């Protein structure tokens, strides 16, 4: 690759990464090469580090990336303009009881459909950090998939072995979470067994383990964790859903992170928000929706920010078959 002869000892000590990160005068000093040779060395090292040469956006159009993971409800998928983007962290924040876990479960099933039906043709890794996995609810959702996904032929739905492809992990602390991601998640992704990672919830671990003074250490751990997720997501074109809690907002200071007039904001602050590509919020509204023999409290799924979505929201309800958007609803206020 590099045709000049540098002093072999110096070159052996350096990896390609070191060459790219060093400055030209430093390299000259270390290797004893002339300026033009050093430039050649840097260019060769950089070419190795580069994964893909630049492509035009037009070529991207005809490429594979840009797939999305549908939620399974056409109304909500329209809000998301297709679904969760692959390659980036999607956050779903909200108070407890609003239905965030429902979304995680629903996506764990919708990912298993083939691409032409909005899935990614593989399973899901569901990481629980607080409560134990709601296995009963998952089985209920599986039983009702035919009802939810009326757009998919029924024989295809019944042929999918849903419960076989949801991999459940319980991690009680930060270290085991990081180990789970580095080993198990990577293994499952490499083998093509999963194309979705759900972390339910991120806030739980980072809020309990650190005292108020440790925020520097907490941010450090948060960045390590999120960068790992980000890398996995980009490398394997896998959507990542992180479920988050909310904190109360006491005063709308001039340093506010959003225009929201709500009294709650997602937990973990600015450091976490900087890592998130799509932020969604789920809240409970007054009123209930009735359908047949079922009734559900009314919810609202809001897009707080996303590179490709407008700030918008959609009312929704939780039924036996899962979360569905409610276009026009008749309220039954109690």
């Amino acid at each position, binding site marked *: 690759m590099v045709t000049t002869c540098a002093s072999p000892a110096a070159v052996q000590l350096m990896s390609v*990464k070191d060459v*790219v*990160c060093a*400055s030209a*005068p430093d390299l*000259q*000093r270390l290797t004893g090469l*002339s*300026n*033009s*040779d050093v430039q050649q060395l*840097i*260019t060769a*090292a*950089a*070419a190795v*580090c*580069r*994964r*893909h*040469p*630049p*492509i*035009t*956006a*037009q070529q*991207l*159009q005809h490429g594979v990336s*840009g797939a999305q993971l549908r939620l399974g409800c056409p109304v909500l998928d329209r809000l998301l303009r*297709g679904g969760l*983007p692959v*390659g*980036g962290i999607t956050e779903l924040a909200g108070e407890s009881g609003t239905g965030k876990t429902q979304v995680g479960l629903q996506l764990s099933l919708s990912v298993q459909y083939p691409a032409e039906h909005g899935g990614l043709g593989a399973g899901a890794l569901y990481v629980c950090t607080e409560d134990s996995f709601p296995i009963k609810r998952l089985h209920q959702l599986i039983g009702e998939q035919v009802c939810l996904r009326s757009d998919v032929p029924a024989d295809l739905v019944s042929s999918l072995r849903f419960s076989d492809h949801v991999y459940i992990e319980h991690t009680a602390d930060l270290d085991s979470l990081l180990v789970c991601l580095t080993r198990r998640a990577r293994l499952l992704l490499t083998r093509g067994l999963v194309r979705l990672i759900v972390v339910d919830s991120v806030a739980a671990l980072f809020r309990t383990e650190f005292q108020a003074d440790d925020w520097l250490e907490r*941010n*450090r751990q948060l*960045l390590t964790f999120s*960068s790992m997720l*980000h*890398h996995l*997501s*980009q*490398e394997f074109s896998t959507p990542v859903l992180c479920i988050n809690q909310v904190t109360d907002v006491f005063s*709308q200071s*001039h*340093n506010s*992170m*959003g*225009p929201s007039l709500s009294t709650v904001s997602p937990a973990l*602050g*600015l*450091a976490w*928000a*900087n890592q*998130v*590509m799509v*932020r969604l919020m789920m809240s409970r509204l007054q009123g209930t929706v009735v359908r047949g023999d079922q009734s559900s409290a009314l919810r609202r799924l809001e897009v707080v*920010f996303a*590179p*490709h979505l*407008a700030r918008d929201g959609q009312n929704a309800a939780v039924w036996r078959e899962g979360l569905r958007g409610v276009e026009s609803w008749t309220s039954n206020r109690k």
Partner: protein
Amino acid sequence: MQRPVSSLPLSQAVRLKLGSAGFQLTADLLDFKPDKLSKETGLSEEEAVEVLKAVKGGGGGGGSGDISASLTALELLQKEEELRSIVTFSSQLDECLGGGIPVGKITEVCGVPGIGKTQLCLQLAVDVQVPQCFGGVEGQVMFIDTVGSFLLQRVTDIAAAAVRHCSLLAEDDEQRAAMETFTVETILSNIFLVRCHDYVELLAELHLLPDFLSQHPKIRLLVIDSVAFPFRLLFDELSQRTRLLNGVGQQLITMAINHNIAVVITNQMTTRIRDGQSHIVPALGECWGHAPTIRLLLQWEGSRRLATIFKSPCHVETMVQYQITPEGFRDADQSEMAHSKRPRMDTDQSAAEPKDTSS
């Protein structure tokens, strides 16, 4: 030339060898051939050639471009006026910036997540391609995405809106002819995209960029979204991070000047505790703040989005309101702005000699 050898742009080792061989001034080196010089000083042939090139390059604007001929301030002013700025499609912001994002300088856009930094970058990636007869720059764009936020759906929306806008403005034959080549497909084909997953890939990409820019001389804009994301992970080695960022800053400004491009980078915000109060400030530290020429801060005030120019050598610190619509980055008051149809004639410069204003 009584210029000391130590002032030449050579590496330390070469200078030491020259010094110990007795060469103090560049005049001493003028009569030497490379092979004789290398024998005298112990330098390799290639190094000797470099030394002589550097010496000769001092008097004429040639060589490897390290020493260029000096320009007068008037020539610089004329050069700057010939360069068009890249409009943002928000007329208020364009006015504050004196036409738009300037070419040949680094502009940094900071803000909290979701405020519109990526939207502005995508808008500029489309705006740089506006044909010259509409007052645009008609250039290509290199988009380095470190976050993964370059989503084709959104780019297509913004491109389609820009095409619609320009076709409504097309008055004469020249503009109508230009609209033939200003379509969503051609806009997408003029955006070069690279995805970098960590800071090493970003640095590698920047090393390879000058060659790429030479091969594609029509590129007028480089966007890096965002510079902060990969570097914020180096929290344990802050000194290395500062050194790397300084290098990045130098590379960017060199490329901006040499290849005549506008560089737009986005930065994140971070919290700083000062005097017991927490403030939100741009990330990457104080040292990085010196790298960009112009810094724009995007922030929320209630439900309004504001853009502030908070560092610039040639603009007043002003605050304007903007909004993000399905069409892209726009003024707050109206959804379509009144875009000037012909290039602006510079009226506020008084020069001694007549200038050739671009038309």
